[in-house]
């Protein structure tokens, strides 16, 4: 059994430990799932599609009658779910013309099921973010730590910034981090 299958199995445990298992499963499959949506990027917002696909997979995990068989079955199933959600959004927005025909009709792309975590890159990112200062640091840290649960408008208000100023500070921070990573060869 692969780590992905084990994590999805633990997501089926009732109660809080099931949610923890599901979080672990999401962390293992997020990269390949997101990468699979690259081909639809002109037509859909991948972040919205991915969150909806994860929420549907949570329902699958809670359905004890549903059996997923084969190596990395939950990832392969999630790739299909993400594609279905993307196609639903493309049709709702009438964006079919922005996607290649083979991607509208085709199968799931081949993906690396478990890209290796690059510990050196993680250290470099932490170091480069640690070197930020002032308003750019405040804005980026607010977005990175709280941006999953609060809108930019709310985050900006918390920091006493106009939304545009908040966004400008994040752009500056990202450029500094990118330059720092480049200097580290990361």
């Amino acid at each position: 059994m692969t780590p992905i299958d084990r994590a999805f199995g633990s997501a089926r445990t009732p109660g809080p430990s099931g949610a923890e298992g599901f979080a672990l499963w999401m962390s293992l499959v997020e990269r390949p799932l997101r990468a699979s949506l690259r081909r639809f990027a002109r037509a859909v917002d991948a972040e919205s599609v991915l969150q909806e696909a994860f929420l549907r997979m949570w329902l699958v995990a809670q359905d004890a009658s549903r059996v997923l068989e084969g190596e990395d079955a939950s990832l392969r199933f999630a790739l299909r779910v993400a594609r279905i959600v993307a196609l639903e959004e493309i049709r709702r927005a009438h964006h079919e013309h922005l996607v290649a025909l083979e991607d509208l009709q085709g199968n799931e792309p081949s993906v690396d099921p478990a890209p290796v975590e690059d510990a050196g890159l993680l250290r470099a990112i932490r170091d480069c973010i640690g070197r930020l200062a002032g308003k750019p640091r405040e804005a980026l840290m607010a977005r990175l730590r709280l941006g999953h649960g609060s809108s930019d408008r709310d985050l900006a208000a918390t920091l006493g910034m106009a939304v545009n100023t908040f966004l400008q500070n994040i752009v500056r921070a990202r450029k500094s981090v990118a330059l720092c990573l480049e200097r580290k060869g990361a």
Partner: protein
Amino acid sequence: MNDDLELMLEATAGAWRERGADLRPVPPPAWWDLPPDAREAAFDLQTRARELERALDPRGFSGTIRAVLARL
């Protein structure tokens, strides 16, 4: 890249999404204003943003994962 486009891209990079009447996540208003080529740049920026979030989170969870967990 001009400043306006940079700000529009940044406005799509966070993991927070409003919910529609059907409770599905809704793309940010700025995403709809982007030309198709820039939407690919938005995808790449979102991907990089999630990596920064992973790097700082004690459990290695991105903003996407934390946003979904809050909805379970």
